[in-house]
Structures are given as structure tokens and as C-alpha cells.
């Protein structure tokens, strides 16, 4: 039983990271109808930037303070992501307005490749650590309840908290700030939004910036957990099923979906895996999503699409 | 050719629309619409924009499923049918906002209208041996007759995207004709045309009706043209039928005048 809960817990942790990536997807899709395949590449790019600057800053400034280095690195990485977002809007999206979804999808595939190449060219292609001083040693909870208690990584908990904070922040941003409201307006109806004078291009830049930040946070957590390396880009592929499950246009969908998938993967891996030779979490999520597609194409929380003649 | 007016015979009811009601998420597009269409006639459905004309058409050829009512064609009545079945029954249509296959040439666009008649299977087509080749030629010939009929020989091989609007409308009509339909549904065939194009189009519509005896149901909001070419007219307003009869009768119908002609241009 304890083991089950442990697995469940680690599942939730992994799921939370998926949620973060998925969140990036959903934000961009809501605002600009673009299915941003490059989200994963952005995560990698951001993580690389952060990891490297966290190394370089002490080297350049001589200030060895960990907090300072990380904060500075975080900010710089953030700025870089803004730049990336701006460039993407300028050089790509702007020229692909009212193209079919698939075209845009393929374009973001191109962006993915470009970012991966660029990131590794600038920041190098080895494995880097992000050390934001998270306590590594595990702790045991509920010793009383279960024999031996439940082993939980502190950093997971902290990561979870950060993620939660981010989500909270975002929802605040959407609910309270005028930009946020504009974003929601755009998401609901492009034409209408434009007609009341909301500049789509600017909105897109903002959304991509936000997505960039989300990517950064995800990258940071992921990086500090498992180190920053090329494979990080593939996290996007892992997060795809999440949004299918949650619905392309629903933020809560992304989060819930992420958790479901995370847990689903771990449980299936642990309880089904052995019978079929293991390693099934890679596709399990997808098959789950696929089955879902057939019965509820719009996902858990997404709204139904009616196309008229 | 006015003094020698072709005499034409209108047959009995071929299509009967009974109490059709359709709504999108609570919004009523059509409420309890009934009318009939006689063989060989030109039947118009008119009404201001948003009167539910297009929805009516979409119900007839299976794009939408009405919540209530049924449509009977040649006696057999159906509530819902797939577009395919409708097509097989010999009902073709054109579209208000062009729905041509942009990536294909004029000939190929019209050829698609023949697909229902193509028998040879994938493998024959892949090898293009014997029957497949002969079939292609047979149907190409048929299509060429339509091209000749619509006088677009000069544009045969041009990608439809490059044609002026008026000609694209003709290709759209051609694609429908290629199905050898018994009933032809025209969705605002003259929308956005200049006067000359409108006259051409009405000529083609009448010719189709004369030459092939095709029954024609057309939607228009441009009264002028409709009154000239149609035998009977149904008037819709806000999804309700407010008038039905010959052009003259409709012209004199009070409700129509107030609802439609009043605001017509």
C-alpha cells in the first residue's frame, strides 16, 4: 500500500512537470491557435541558458553567491526567452496568419529544430546541472501510518510548490491584469478581439513570452532534478497526450491531464510493465490519449468544435 | 430569342419537404418549414440574409440533420441521410462561397463530380490498365461536354484558383452537373457577380433546365433575377416560411412585401 502511494506520489511529481509543459502549449494555442511543437525545445533552450549563466556569472563577476548567480541567471534566461518569443512572432507567425493548423504545426516543428541547434551551439551540448540549492535528501512521511513510511523527495515537494505558485500567478495574471483580460478575449474570439482594438500581434508576443517563462520554470525544475541535456527537448512529446486528454484550450485541463498522465505512466509502468517487458510509459500515455480521442475529441475540458458550411 | 419561347412541361412533385425544424444550440435556424418541388421546374427559395436559406439546403443534402420533420424524395422519405446517399439519389449542389478544390485544374474539379460513376478499383487505377484507362477517357469525354456547355474551353487546364470569380462559379456548377443530377440545388449562384455575369449565369441555369430537364432549387436574395427565371418561389424570413407561389403571387403577398421587398435594394 505504501509502495502504491509512493508510486502515485512520484507519478504526480512527473505529472506536474508535464502539466507545466502542457500549460505552455495551451496558453499559446488559446491565444494564437498555434499548436506549438517547439514548447519542448523552448524548455531545453531556457534550461540551457539558465544552467550556463548560473556557471558563467560567478566566473565573470567573481561573486560566488549561489542565490545571486541563480537569480541573475534566471532573469537573463527569462530575457532571452522574451527575445526568442519576439523573434518567433516577428519572423514566423506574422507571415503565417490564417494558415491551416497543420501548416503552423509544421512551422513550429521547424522552430523546434532551429532552437535545438541554436541552443546547443551557444550553450554547448554536454549535460549541465542546475543547482538552485534544493535539498536532495529524501524524507519519510506517515511513518506511523505505513510500515517504513513513505519515501518522498523534498525537492519534488518544493518543485510542486513552485509549479503551484506559477499556476496561481498565471491565473492571477489572467484574471486581474488588463493584458490578461485581453488575452482571454483573444482566446475566446479573434475577430471580436481585433474589432474592439486588441492588437493581435502584441498579444501573441506576450503569450509566447509567458510560454517562455513557463518553459523556463519547467526547465529549471527538470534540470535541477535530472540535469539539463538534449533529451529535455523530447519532454514536449511526452506532454502532448496531456493536452489531448485535458483539452487543447483548457488550463485546468492541462494541469489535471498532466497529473493523470503522470500517475498513469508510473502506475502502468509498475503494475503493467513487468508483464510486457517494461518501458511502456512512453506509449501508454499516447494510447490513453488516443482512446480518449475516439470518444471525446475535444478532451476533458475543451469545448466542442462545430464547423459550419 | 424572346418571340419563340420554348414551351416546357412541369411534372409532378419530386421532392417534398415536411415540417423541417433545425436549431444550433438553442438558436432556431428553421422552424416548421414545408414546401414541395415539382419535376423539371425552377424553384426558388428567397429571403433576406440569415433567413435560413442555406441551412435549408444543408438539411436537404445531408450536411445538417434537422431536429424535426422529414424530406421525401421520389416518394421515399428520410429524416437523415449521409451526403453520400443524397448524392447517390441524384441531388447535387453548388456553394454560396466558392467551395472548389483549389489545388486542381478545371477539368479535374469537374471530374470529381464523376467519381460516383467510377467503378475500377485501386489496383486497376494504380496500373492504369484496360478498364481504368477506358473509364478515365469515358468520363473525361463526359466532362468535356460540360466544359463545352459552360463555354470554359479556354480555361480547361488552368488551376481553378487562377480563374476570375464568375468563371469559378461556372466550374462549381459544372462539378454539380457532372453528377447528372435529377435535382440541382444552387446556393446563391449569382452572389457577388456583376450584371453581365449574372445574365450569363441565369442563361446557363435556364439552359440546364431546358437541355437536361434538371429540376432546379435555387437560393437567392437578389429578387430581380429570381423572379425572371423561377417558376415558383418560397419566401423565408427568420427561419419561417412567409410566402409560397408563383413570382407574381409572391410579389403581391403583403407579408413578403413588408418583410422583404420593403428592405430590398
Amino acid at each position, binding site marked *: 500500500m505504501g509502495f502504491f502511494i509512493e508510486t502515485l506520489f512520484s507519478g504526480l511529481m512527473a505529472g506536474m512537470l508535464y502539466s507545466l509543459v502542457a500549460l505552455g502549449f495551451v496558453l499559446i494555442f488559446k491565444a494564437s491557435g498555434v499548436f506549438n511543437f517547439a514548447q519542448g525545445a523552448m524548455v531545453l533552450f531556457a534550461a540551457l541558458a539558465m544552467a550556463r549563466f548560473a556557471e558563467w556569472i560567478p566566473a565573470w563577476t567573481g561573486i560566488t553567491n549561489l542565490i545571486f548567480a541563480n537569480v541573475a541567471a534566471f532573469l537573463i534566461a527569462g530575457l532571452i526567452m522574451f527575445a526568442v518569443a519576439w523573434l518567433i512572432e516577428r519572423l514566423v507567425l506574422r507571415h503565417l496568419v490564417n494558415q491551416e493548423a497543420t501548416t503552423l504545426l509544421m512551422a513550429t516543428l521547424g522552430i523546434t529544430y532551429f532552437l535545438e541547434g541554436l541552443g546547443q551551439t551557444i550553450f554547448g551540448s554536454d549535460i549541465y546541472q542546475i543547482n538552485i540549492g534544493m535539498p536532495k535528501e529524501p524524507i519519510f512521511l506517515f511513518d506511523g501510518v505505513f510500515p517504513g513510511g513513505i519515501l518522498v523527495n523534498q525537492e519534488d515537494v518544493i518543485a510542486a510548490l513552485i509549479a503551484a505558485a506559477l499556476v496561481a500567478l498565471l491565473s492571477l495574471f489572467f484574471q486581474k491584469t488588463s493584458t490578461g483580460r485581453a488575452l482571454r478575449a483573444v482566446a475566446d474570439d479573434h475577430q471580436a478581439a481585433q474589432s474592439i482594438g486588441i492588437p493581435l500581434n502584441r498579444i501573441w508576443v506576450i503569450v509566447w513570452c509567458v510560454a517562455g517563462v513557463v518553459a523556463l520554470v519547467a526547465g529549471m525544475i527538470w534540470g535541477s532534478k535530472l540535469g539539463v541535456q538534449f533529451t529535455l527537448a523530447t519532454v514536449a512529446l511526452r506532454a502532448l497526450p496531456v493536452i489531448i486528454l485535458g483539452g487543447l484550450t483548457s488550463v485546468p485541463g492541462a494541469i489535471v491531464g498532466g497529473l493523470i498522465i503522470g500517475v498513469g505512466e508510473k502506475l502502468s509502468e509498475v503494475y503493467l510493465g513487468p508483464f510486457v517487458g517494461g518501458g511502456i510509459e512512453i506509449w501508454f500515455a499516447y494510447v490513453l490519449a488516443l482512446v480518449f480521442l475516439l470518444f471525446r475529441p475535444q478532451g476533458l475540458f475543451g469545448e466542442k468544435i462545430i464547423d459550419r458550411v | *430569342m424572346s418571340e*419563340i419561347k*420554348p*414551351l*416546357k412541361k412541369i411534372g409532378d412533385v419530386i421532392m417534398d419537404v415536411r415540417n423541417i425544424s433545425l436549431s444550433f444550440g438553442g438558436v432556431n435556424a428553421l422552424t416548421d418549414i414545408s414546401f414541395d418541388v415539382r419535376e423539371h421546374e425552377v424553384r426558388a427559395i428567397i429571403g433576406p440574409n440569415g433567413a435560413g436559406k442555406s441551412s435549408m439546403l444543408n438539411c436537404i443534402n445531408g450536411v445538417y440533420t434537422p431536429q424535426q420533420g422529414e424530406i421525401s424524395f421520389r416518394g421515399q422519405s428520410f429524416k437523415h441521410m449521409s451526403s453520400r446517399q443524397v448524392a447517390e439519389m441524384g441531388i447535387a449542389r453548388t456553394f454560396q462561397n466558392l467551395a472548389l478544390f483549389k489545388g486542381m485544374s478545371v*477539368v479535374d474539379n469537374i471530374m470529381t463530380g464523376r467519381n460516383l460513376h467510377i467503378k475500377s478499383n485501386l489496383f486497376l487505377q494504380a496500373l492504369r490498365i484496360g478498364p481504368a484507362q477506358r473509364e478515365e477517357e469515358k468520363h*473525361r*469525354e463526359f466532362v*468535356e*461536354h460540360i*466544359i*463545352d*456547355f459552360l*463555354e470554359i*474551353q*479556354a480555361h*480547361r487546364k488552368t488551376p481553378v484558383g487562377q480563374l476570375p470569380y464568375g468563371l469559378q462559379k461556372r466550374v462549381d456548377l459544372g462539378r454539380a452537373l457532372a453528377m447528372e443530377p435529377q435535382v440541382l440545388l444552387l446556393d446563391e449562384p449569382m452572389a457577388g457577380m456583376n450584371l453581365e455575369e449574372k445574365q450569363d449565369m441565369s442563361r446557363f441555369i435556364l*439552359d440546364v433546365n*431546358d*437541355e437536361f430537364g434538371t429540376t432546379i432549387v435555387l437560393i437567392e436574395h437578389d429578387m430581380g433575377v429570381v423572379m425572371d427565371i423561377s417558376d415558383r418561389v418560397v419566401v423565408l424570413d427568420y427561419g419561417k416560411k412567409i410566402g409560397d407561389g408563383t413570382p407574381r403571387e409572391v410579389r403581391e403577398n403583403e407579408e413578403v412585401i413588408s418583410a422583404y421587398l420593403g428592405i430590398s435594394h
Partner: protein
Amino acid sequence: MQTTFPRLLLKHATERPRAAAMREKEFGIWQTLSWGDLRELVADIAGGLHQAGLRRGQHMVVVGSNRPRLYATMLAAQSLGAVPIPLYQDSAAAECVFPINNADVCFAFAEDQEQVDKLLEIRELCPQLAHIYFDDPRGLRKYDEPGLMAIEELVAAGKVYARQHESFFKTHIEQAQPDDVAAMFFTSGTTGNPKGVVHTHDSLLDRARAGASFDKLTHEEEVLAYLPPAWIGQNIFSYAQWLACGYIVNCPESSETVTIDLKEVGPTYYFAPPRVFEGLLTSVMIRMEDASALKRKMFHAFMELARRVGPDRMDGKPLGLADKLLYTLGDWMVYGPLRNNLGMSRVRVAYTAGEAIGPDLFQFYRSIGINLKQLYGSTETAVFVCLQPDNAARADTVGLPIAGVEIKVAANGEILVKSPGLLKEYFKNPQATAEVLTPDGWYHTSDAGFIDAHGHLKIIDRVKDVGRIKGGANDGAMFAPKYVENKLKFFPFIKEVVAYGDGREKVCVMINIDMNAVGNWAERRNLPYAGYTDLAQKPEVYQLIQECIEKVNADLAADELLAGSQISRFLVLHKELDADDGELTRTNKVRRAFIADKYQPLVDGLYGGKTEQYIETVVKFEDGRAGKVSATLRIDDSKTFAPIKAAA
């Protein structure tokens, strides 16, 4: 060996039944009709017509554009000994009345609804017109007019008849004799009713053959029939010579696809009036305008070369090695592709006729390797009187008299022709016949001209227009206004010219500049101007025009006969000559006399030696209102040259 058209049909059908006789682009492909099929079709139509009552000597009208069935109907009529009368498909209904009644026609073949409507419209006026057969049933299914019938039905009926009467077709054809009347063509006289020009099988076929042997035409030629069949030219090329040589005639799909069809067919034997060639050239130049600078440079460079060596090459003169190589390169880069896009890569022989053709225009086609030539002839002469040999084509002559033709120039300069191809008579019009046909068989062409040093015929003008200079330096010299005017009009800057000189001591001209050409010219040398009148009076423009005139004078000086017609004074008119003001005919020919007295002051000014003249004229505007324009026009002198006696 003498024969008739139907006999030639049988000959081809027996010798080469499978070979193609006619192609028609219909339903996207070139539907081919072999000589065998054609014979059958003709036999069936003949059967049908015979049943319907068409008899020897009767006339039958065919009206429509080039369609195999139209030509088949003509053959069928001839097989029965009846006389087909092709009418212009674009003529108004009223214009058809006279021919139909004149030859009291009871049978008509109409291409389509348009033509049928035309005939039905005039039926009250031509009650005898009992039978109308149409080719294209589009829109005609519901007509229930007495005697209106689809050609298919006629063919079907004829098939039955032909099956019952095995030998009927052959026997009828044998009865027809070479000197029987074969066809009748109505020429629109400028005044009065049109005249029906009657031709026999002999006259038409003899000329067809003469032309064919002159250009060594074979049965492999391809011809595109796109001009009205009612016009003798088209009829010779796509009917008489078609049957004489047994080559292939191609009918375009529709009027707006002619250029495409031309490119597809790639005729080997081509004919067009100058305006067609002009249209093609302009389109070429316009399309080249949008080409990249580099490409334009290359194009013009090679065209320059072509202008230099092309004509000599065509005339079979030897070229320098360098030029040969350059021209070959040019043929690769420009001439070849150009010919291909014009649809003329396969052209062996191309003719232009009808009116004078500009030398530049003429040379353009020859220089890119198209064997364009001129010929002289008319409806009355069954076209072929003079033809230009391949290596001696000139813009200003119309060629050598060909086999069977005798030519002499009458005292008044009129050209008289004696040839086996002359008309038999004007139908039911002996008086008109007598006017043109002398008892000893000379035909009066009413063209003035002469045979030049090389034996080529040179057309100057209509006889009635040719005048004489009276008094002054070259008293009594011949003056040919049209000739002078045309020479000037070949300059792009000059739109219209009116030349005076008959009965006067010198030649003076009034000129209309071409607004576009001169406008561009002015802009290129940034010369500001406010509208036509202003531009017309610019000294620079006068300078420009003067140069043109003096070039012409130089030319004329070289020409013994016309040296006296050199232009000594000119002015540029302040307004464009306009048909609405009665200054031009509806066919845009200048009305000299009318203009002369409308602009009396100007004429006086010209001859009175003034250097400028005030003039005030009434003009009609588009909206019908009348207004006055007035201007003071300068009058300039132009250099004339001493006549150069033609050496030898």
C-alpha cells in the same frame, strides 16, 4: 485534267480513305474526319438535301464559322449540282436578305442558334427560305419552326435514302461538269447592293492548283481555318486548295481559343491579313516589355541582328560566317522560341494580302525565319494573280504573275488581268459584268499599278483616286494619294494622312499624329505638352514629322513613276480625324473631298505658301453636343529630291 470539287473528294476518299481530311477541336481534342468518313458524311447530307428537294442549279446558303459540317454541306450541295453561297457569320440579318432573295434561296445551313435566329428573323422577307438546317443544337431543341431541322436528322434521313439508291451519289457527281457553276461569293459593294461573283469549278480549281504548284504544296500541309468561310481567301485556302491538294484543314475550338489552337496545330501553310500580323507583333512587344532587363537586352540585340541579316538569309543570299553563327545562336535563344509561341515553327509558306503591309512589320516576320509573302488577287480573280517567290518577297510589291495569268497596264494605269480564274459573271447583273469584263476576256481590277524592273507587280492605288500633277516642276506626273498616305502611315508616329495634289502643282499633306506613339516620344525626351492640339503644334513634333516625310520623299524619288508625288508642304492637324465628324468612313478610310472643303482655309494655306493658318472647326463630342475648336497651325516645307532614274 479538269475536274470538280465532288470528284476530287471521291478521288481522295478512294486513294487515301484513312488519311485525315479535317480536324476540329471539340471537347478538348482534335476530332479527326478522314476522307473516307467525309465522303460518307457528304453522301448522306446530299441524300437528305436531294430528298428535301434541292435540285441542280439551285442555290443554298451556308452561314457560320469554320466547321467540318459546313464544308461538308457545301460539298454535298455541289455534288447535287447546286450552288453553295457562303455568307459572313457576323453580318446583320438585314444584310442576308438581298443575297437570299437575289438567288432565291430555299435551303440554308446555319451553324448555331445565333445564325438560326438571324435567318428566322428575316423569314417574312424571304418566304421561299423553306429549309434551315443547324449544326449545333444548343438552345434550339425547343424551337418548333416549320422546316427547321438539325443536321443530324438530315444526315439520318440521307443515310436511309442513300442506302435505297446505291449509285445516286456517284451519278449526280458525274453529271456535274467542270465548267458548271461551283460557288457564289457576295462582295459588299461600297455603293448599292452586293454583287454575287459566280465561279465555276474550273476557275476556282485552276487557280487553286496554280497557287499550289507555285509553292509546291503537298497533301501533308496543315492549315488552320479561322477566317470567315464567306471570304474568298479563306474559301480558297480551306476549300479549293484543300480539295486540290488533299491536305488537312483544322478548325479551332472557339473564337477565343484561336491562339491556343494555332499553337497546338502549328500550320505549315498560313494566311492572314496584315492586321492579324500586326496584332501578333504588338502582343509580342507588349509581353516583352514585362521581361527582365537582361532578357529584354538579349531580345533586342538578337532582333537587331535579325533585322540586319534575317531578310538576306530568307532570300537565300550567303551570310558571313560570324553572322551565320550569331543567327544560329539567335535562332536558339529567340527566333525559335518566338516562332513556337506564335504557333509558326512549322510554317513553310505564309501569305498576307488585302491591304498594304508596313515594311517593318513584313520584315519582322521574315527576319525571324517565317517565310511571309504577299499575293495579289480578288474575289473576281479567285485570288491567285500574282505571288511572291520565296526568295524575292518585298513589302512594296505583290509578286510575279503566276502560271496562266496575263497582265497589262492600261493607259490610265489600271491593271488588267487575263486568267483562267476569272469570274464567270456577276449573278443576274450583266451590266456590272460588262463593266469589268471586256469581250476579249480582260478583267478590269480597278487597281492602278505597274510592273517594276524585276517584273514584280506594284500596286499604287485605286484607279479612281490616281490623279495627275498639273503645272509646276513636274507637270503631268502621276499622283497616287493612297500610296503616299500609306507610306507615311507606316511610321508609328503618323496615324492618319490626307494627301492632295490632283490637278495642283505640288503635293501637300495634312497629318494626324498618333497620340500614344508621339506622346511616349515626347515624354522620353521630357517635352511637356497639354493635350493633343498642343502636342501637335510643337516645333519638335514638326521636326519629327518632317524627317518621316523626307524619308518618304527619298523613297519616292527612287521611283520613276511616282517621283512627282513627293511631298513639298505639310501641316499637322489640331484634331484627330473622326468618323463621327464625317472625316473618316466607318471603316476608317479618309474622305479626302469632304476634308478638303471642311478645312478649305488649311488647303488654301498649304498651297498659298503661308507659314501658318488660323482654323476654326465644329466637333461633335461623345455626348452628341457640338463645340468649336480653333487653333493656328504652322505649315512647314519639306525637302524633295531629284528623281533618280532607275539604272537598267
